[in-house]
C-alpha cells in the first residue's frame, strides 16, 4: 500500500527509532505517533496511551492494526483524545466467503448454499471516526498546538496495534487535477470485464451477507429453479465503517470506468453513500462520497464527477483492489444536528405531557408558555435548526431530498405554528408526537445506508456502458418457469430426501406467546443452517416444515406426526409429555454435557419427575425498562430492591408520572420466589397457594394496583414513549416493540434487572419465573439416534449463536430474544450494559414447574387477581379459595393421567 510506503519514508526522514513514543512536532502531513513493528497486543480491558504534540490543525487519527483470530464478534475499541469522552468504534476483522471452485458450495439439488465465512486477519489501516466539537464525525478533530494524548481501550475483544498516525485533514485532488497528475487521458484498448459482487475478496463484517434475489432474471447469475446466491449486501451492509473489497484486473495500462450494478430498496427514497478506495487510496475527491440513489430494481451506476460526467480512473496492468466503504458523508453533520433536536423536542414533549396529560382537552387554554420556561424559544430554535438542515438536503438536489425535506418542512411548520399560537400545542399534541417519531425515523433511516450489489464492471473508458435490463417477456418467462418448477421441487427437504427423512417441524408462534416469534423467515434460516452444517456433517436427510403447534396433536393421532419439533411452547410440551408422546432426553448419550449448556432454571418447565422432555431454546423473563433521561431529570436511581421501587413510585406519582407493572402472573411468581416460596409442593401433588409466602406475595401483588395506584391496564409502548410511564417491568417482547415502534427515544432508555429483596448477607434476591420454549423429540420418531444428533447440534453454542446472528441480520434489533443457551447471550449484539443486565438477571431466574393443572392455575390466578383488584375482595380469602379450586383440578388431572393423585 502506497500509504505505508509514504509513512515509512517520513519516519526515516525524521530519524525516529524503531520503537518510539513521541515524535517531534513538525508540520508534516502525517505524523506517526506510535510505531511497534511487531505489534502491541491490547487485550480486552487494557489501555494504551499515546502522547504526541501537534500544531494547530484539524487531523484524523488513523490506526494500523490487526485482529486476533478466534472470536466471532467484531472487536470494539474505545478512543478518547485528551481525556475527553470515549468514543466506541468497531475495529473490524477481515472476513472472506468460502468458495468451492468458481462459486459457492451447492447441495445435491444444485442449489447454492450461503457460503460460510472465515477470518482472514491481516494488517489493516483504519481512519477513526472521532467526533469534533460539534459532534460530527466526518471532519476530523481539532487539535490546538501543543501536546496531546490519545487513549485506546480494547472494549470488546483484543486487537494488535502496529501504528497510530495523526494525519492532517488534507484535500484529495479534484478529478481534473488527478487526471493531470496522471499524465492526461490516453486511449485505451477496448476491454470490458464483469465481476460478480457476491464473489468479493474480503469484507469487514460477517453481517455483510451473500444472499439471493429470485424474483427476476435481472440479477446475474440467475436460475428460475435453483437457488443461486447472486447478490451481496442488504441491510447488514449499512453502518459507517463497513466495507467490501473486490479484486479486479486489467490487461494493459489505461483509463477504465467502473460500473456498479446495485439496488437500494430497503430505505425508501434515500441516497446511500459509499467511499471508493482503489488499492487502498482515495484517488480523487469524488471518490470520497459516491452516491447511490434509491431504486426499485437493479440499476447501473458509473463512477462520475459531481456534474455527472463519467470519471475513468487510471489502472496499471495487473490486479487491483476496489473497496466500497460505508460513510455518512455530507449528511453526517446534518444528522448530528437533527439528533440534538430530537432530544430537545422529546424533553419539551415530556414537560408538556406532564401538564396536560396525553389526551388534553382541546378547549382548554393551558398557558403552557407560562408554565414551561423558554418553551417558545426552544420551539423556535428547533424549527430554525431543522430548516437549516432541510436547506442542506435540498442542495443535494435529488428526489430523496424532496421526501425528507417535505417531512422536515411539516415539522418546521408545526413548530412555528406553536410559536405563533401556543394554544395549538395542546390541540396538536398527537401530531407533535407523530412528528417527533417521524423525525427520529428519518434520522434512523438516513444513518443506515443499506446497499445490495450484483456485479461490478470494469471497462475501458470509451466502451459503452451496458444498461440492459430484462424486458417484460423475459421476466414473464422466468416467473412462469419458476412457478412450474414449484410443482416438482421440494423446498422443505434438504438433500432431496424422501420418506426416510427426519421430519423436523418449526412451530409458528406469535411474539406474545413466548416473547419470541417464529415465522417463515426463521424456518428458512433453519433450513439453511441444516443444509450447510448439520447435513454436511452427518449426511442425515431432513425435512423442514413450518407448522402451527396445534397441529402436532392431530398429526400424532393420525400417525403423521413429526420426529422433532422446535420452538414448542412449554405448555404444549407438558401436555404432550403427560400423554407419553415425548421421549425422555436423558436417553441421549451425552445428555450431561448438553445440560451444561443451559442454566438449570430453563429446564424446570421442561422436566417432570426427573425426566426431561425438551431442551430449551428461548428463555424469556421480565426486565426493568427505564427512561434514562427522565430518571436523570428527577434525580432518580434505578431501583435495586422493592423498597427502592416503592420509593421511586411515590416520587414519580407526586410528579404526575406513573410506573408500569405488566399485568401478568409472572409478577406474583416473582414476589413469591423472592420470599423463597414455591407455587407447588416438590412432588407436584398439590399447590402451596395457601402458604404464608404465597398469601403475602399475592397481597403485595394486588396491593400494587389497589393501594399503590399502579395502573392496571396501560398501553406500555406509547406511555413509555411519551414519558408518562418512564419505568416499566415487562417481558422481552417489550424490548422488540420499543426498538421498532419507538425509534425516537433510541438511546434514551435502558434495561436493568428487576427489583429484588435484600437478604442478610447483602445480596439481592432477584429470582423470577421465566417462559421457555423448547425442542423435543416425539415418541413416534423413526430414528431416535438421528433425532438426538439433531437436537445436540441444534442446541449447541455454535448453532444457536449462528441462528441468532442470522435472525438479527434479517430483522435487526426487533429479532433479538433471550436465548436459553448460556454462551449465546454473550455473542449476540447486545450493548455491554444490556448484556450485563441480562446476565445478572438470568442467573437469578427460577421457574415454576409445570403440572397437569398449569392452565387451570393460570386462569385461577388471573381470576383471583381480578377479584381483588376490581371487586376489592380480601386477597387472603381470594387466594385461599382459588388455591383450593386449583388443588381439586390438579387432583382430577393427576388421576386422569394416572400420574398419582388421590
Amino acid at each position: 500500500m502506497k500509504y505505508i510506503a509514504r509513512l515509512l519514508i517520513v519516519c526515516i526522514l525524521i530519524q525516529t527509532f524503531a520503537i518510539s513514543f513521541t515524535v517531534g512536532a513538525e508540520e508534516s502531513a502525517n505524523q506517526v505517533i506510535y510505531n511497534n513493528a511487531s505489534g502491541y497486543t491490547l487485550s480486552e480491558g487494557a489501555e494504551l496511551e499515546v502522547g504526541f504534540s501537534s500544531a494547530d490543525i484539524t487531523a484524523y487519527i488513523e490506526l494500523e492494526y490487526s485482529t486476533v483470530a478466534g472470536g466471532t464478534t467484531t472487536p470494539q475499541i474505545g478512543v478518547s483524545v485528551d481525556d475527553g469522552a470515549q468514543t466506541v468504534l468497531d475495529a473490524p476483522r477481515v472476513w472472506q466467503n468460502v468458495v468451492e471452485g468458481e462459486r459457492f458450495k451447492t447441495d445435491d439439488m444444485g442449489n447454492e448454499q450461503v457460503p460460510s465465512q472465515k477470518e482472514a486477519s491481516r494488517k489493516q489501516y483504519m481512519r477513526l471516526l472521532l467526533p469534533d466539537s460539534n459532534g460530527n464525525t466526518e471532519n476530523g478533530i481539532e487539535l490546538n498546538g501543543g501536546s496531546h494524548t490519545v487513549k485506546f481501550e480494547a472494549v470488546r475483544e483484543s486487537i494488535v496495534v502496529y501504528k497510530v498516525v495523526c494525519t492532517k485533514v488534507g484535500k484529495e485532488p479534484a478529478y481534473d487535477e488527478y487526471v493531470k497528475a496522471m499524465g492526461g487521458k490516453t486511449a485505451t484498448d477496448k476491454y470490458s470485464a464483469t465481476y460478480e459482487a457476491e464473489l468479493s475478496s474480503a469484507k469487514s463484517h460477517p453481517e455483510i451477507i451473500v444472499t439471493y434475489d429470485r424474483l427476476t432474471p435481472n440479477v446475474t447469475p440467475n436460475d428460475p429453479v435453483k437457488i443461486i446466491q447472486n447478490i451481496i449486501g442488504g441491510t447488514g451492509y449499512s453502518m459507517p465503517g463497513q466495507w467490501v473489497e473486490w479484486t479486479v484486473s486489467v490487461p494493459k495500462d489505461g483509463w477504465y470506468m467502473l460500473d456498479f450494478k446495485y439496488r437500494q430498496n430497503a430505505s425508501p427514497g434515500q441516497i446511500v453513500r459509499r467511499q471508493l478506495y482503489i488499492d487502498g487510496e482515495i484517488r480523487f475527491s469524488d471518490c470520497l462520497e459516491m452516491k447511490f440513489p434509491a431504486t426499485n430494481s437493479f440499476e447501473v451506476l458509473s463512477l462520475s464527477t459531481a456534474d455527472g460526467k463519467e470519471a475513468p480512473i487510471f489502472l496499471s496492468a495487473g490486479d487491483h483492489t476496489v473497496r466500497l466503504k460505508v460513510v455518512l458523508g455530507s449528511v453526517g453533520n446534518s444528522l448530528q444536528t437533527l439528533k440534538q433536536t430530537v432530544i430537545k423536542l422529546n424533553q419539551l414533549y415530556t414537560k408538556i405531557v406532564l401538564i396536560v396529560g396525553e389526551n388534553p382537552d382541546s378547549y382548554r387554554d393551558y398557558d403552557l408558555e407560562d408554565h414551561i420556561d423558554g418553551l417558545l424559544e426552544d420551539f423556535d430554535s428547533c424549527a430554525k435548526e431543522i430548516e437549516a438542515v432541510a436547506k442542506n438536503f435540498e442542495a443535494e438536489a435529488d428526489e430523496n431530498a424532496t421526501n425528507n425535506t417535505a417531512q422536515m418542512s411539516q415539522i418546521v411548520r408545526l413548530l412555528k405554528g406553536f410559536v405563533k399560537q401556543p394554544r395549538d400545542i395542546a390541540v396538536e399534541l398527537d401530531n407533535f408526537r407523530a412528528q417527533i417519531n417521524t423525525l427520529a425515523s428519518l434520522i434512523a433511516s438516513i444513518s443506515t445506508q443499506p446497499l445490495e450489489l450484483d456485479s461490478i464492471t470494469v471497462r475501458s473508458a470509451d466502451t459503452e456502458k451496458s444498461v440492459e435490463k430484462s424486458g417484460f417477456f423475459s421476466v414473464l418467462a422466468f416467473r412462469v418457469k419458476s412457478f412450474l418448477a414449484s410443482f416438482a421441487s421440494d423446498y422443505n427437504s434438504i438433500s432431496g430426501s424422501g420418506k426416510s427423512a427426519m421430519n423436523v417441524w418449526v412451530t409458528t408462534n406469535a411474539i406474545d406467546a413466548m416473547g419470541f416469534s417464529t415465522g417463515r423467515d426463521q424456518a428458512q434460516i433453519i433450513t439453511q443452517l441444516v443444509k450447510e452444517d448439520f447435513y454436511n456433517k452427518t449426511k442425515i436427510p431432513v425435512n423442514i416444515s413450518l407448522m402451527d403447534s396445534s397441529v402436532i396433536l392431530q398429526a400424532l393421532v393420525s400417525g403423521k406426526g413429526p420426529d422433532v419439533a422446535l420452538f414448542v411452547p412449554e405448555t404444549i410440551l407438558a401436555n404432550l409429555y403427560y400423554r407419553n408422546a415425548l421421549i425422555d432426553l436423558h436417553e441421549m448419550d451425552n445428555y450431561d454435557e448438553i445440560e451444561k449448556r443451559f442454566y438449570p432454571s430453563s429446564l424446570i418447565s421442561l422436566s417432570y419427575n426427573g425426566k426431561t422432555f425438551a431442551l430449551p431454546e428461548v428463555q424469556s423473563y421480565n426486565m426493568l425498562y427505564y427512561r434514562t433521561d427522565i430518571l436523570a431529570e428527577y434525580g432518580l436511581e434505578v431501583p435495586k430492591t422493592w423498597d427502592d421501587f416503592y420509593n421511586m413510585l411515590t416520587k414519580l406519582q407526586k410528579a404526575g408520572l406513573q410506573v408500569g407493572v405488566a399485568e401478568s402472573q409472572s409478577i406474583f411468581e416473582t414476589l413469591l420466589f423472592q420470599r423463597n416460596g414455591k407455587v407447588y409442593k416438590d412432588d407436584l401433588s398439590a399447590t402451596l397457594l395457601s402458604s404464608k409466602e404465597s398469601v403475602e406475595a399475592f397481597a403485595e401483588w394486588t396491593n400494587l394496583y389497589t393501594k399503590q395506584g399502579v395502573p392496571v391496564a396501560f398501553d406500555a409502548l406509547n406511555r413509555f414513549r411519551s414519558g408518562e410511564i418512564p419505568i416499566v417491568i415487562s417481558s422481552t417482547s417489550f424490548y422488540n416493540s420499543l426498538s421498532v415502534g419507538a425509534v425516537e427515544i433510541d438511546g434514551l432508555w435502558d434495561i436493568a434487572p428487576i427489583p429484588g429483596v435484600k437478604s442478610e448477607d447483602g445480596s439481592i434476591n432477584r429470582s423470577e419465573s421465566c417462559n421457555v420454549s423448547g425442542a423435543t423429540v416425539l415418541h413416534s420418531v423413526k430414528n431416535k439416534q438421528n433425532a438426538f444428533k439433531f437436537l445436540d447440534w441444534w442446541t449447541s453454542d455454535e448453532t444457536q449463536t449462528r441462528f441468532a446472528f442470522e435472525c438479527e441480520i434479517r430483522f435487526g434489533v426487533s429479532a433479538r430474544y433471550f436465548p436459553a443457551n448460556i454462551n449465546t447471550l454473550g455473542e449476540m449484539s447486545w450493548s455491554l450494559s444490556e448484556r450485563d443486565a441480562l446476565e445478572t438477571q438470568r442467573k437469578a431466574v427460577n421457574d415454576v414447574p409445570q403440572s397437569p393443572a398449569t392452565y387451570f392455575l393460570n386462569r385461577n390466578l388471573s381470576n383471583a387477581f381480578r377479584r381483588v383488584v376490581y371487586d376489592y375482595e380480601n386477597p387472603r380469602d381470594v387466594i385461599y379459595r382459588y388455591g383450593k379450586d386449583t388443588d381439586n383440578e390438579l387432583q382430577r388431572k393427576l388421576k386422569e393421567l394416572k400420574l398419582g393423585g388421590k
Partner: protein
Amino acid sequence: MRKKKRTTRSGFGNAIAAIFLLLMGVFIALPIYYSIINAFKPTSELFLFPPRFVVYEPTFQNFLNVVRVQSQSLVPVERYLFNSVFITIVGTAGYVLIASMAAYPMAKRNFPGKKVIYYIVVFAILFRPEVTSLPQYMMMSKFNMLDTYWALIFPLLATSFGVFLMMQFMSTVPDEILEAARIDGAGEKYTFFHIVLPTVKPALLTLTIFNFVSAWSTAGSQFTYSETMKLLPTMLSQISTGSIMRAGVTAAGTVLLMLPSIIVFAVCQGSVIETMTHSGIKS
C-alpha cells in the same frame, strides 16, 4: 326499466330510511376502513395508541415491501396465489354446482329417504365444526389426501348450508313451469340446467359470494405441510409472525387479500339485484 311509483311508499319515508341506513352502514364498516388505512401507515404510525383513523403520512411502502419480501421466498409467490385461486374456483364453482344439483330433487321431487336426508342436511348445519376437525383430519390422513389440493377442496364441498339455501329458493319455483317443460318433452337434466337454475339465479349468486369468501380466506394450515401447498392467508400469517417489523407488510397483505372478495361481491350482488327485476315468474 321504469320504476313504477309505489303507492305505499312516501318519498319522505324513503329518505329517512336511506339516511339511517347510511349512518348505520358507515358505522358497521368502520373497522374495515381502519384495516385499510393501516396498510398505508408508515411504521412510525402503526403502533400508536389510541389508534389513528387518519394517516398523517400515507405511503405505499408497505405494498412495495410485500414484493420485496417475496424476493427472498423459496417458493415463488405465484404458487401461493395459484393454490388459493385454484381451490377457491374449484371449491366455489364446484360447490354451487353440486349443491344445487342435490337441492333440486330435495325441493321438487319425492323419493324414498327424502325426509331423512332433509333432516340430516339441516342438522349438519347446526353441528359445530370445532369438534369434527380432528376426525376430519383423520379421514384425510386415511385417504392419504394430506398435503394435496383435495384436502383443501373437499371441506369446502362438504357443507350442507348451500344445499339448504338452494332447497329453499328452489321450492319457490312454481311447479307449473316444470310440468310444462316435462310435457314439452324436456328431460330432467335439461329442466334443471335451463329452467330451474336461471330462475334461482339470485340464490346461486348469493351462494357464490358466500362460498367464495369462505374458500378464499381458508387457511388450510392444518392440512398442508409442504411450503408449496400453502395458501395465501397462511403465507401471510407466517410472514407476519417472523417479527413485528413485518407489521406493515401484514397490513398491506391483508388489504390485498380483501380485494378479490370485494370484486366478487360487487359483481354478484349487482347481478342479484339486476336479475330480479326481470323475474317474470308468473306465466
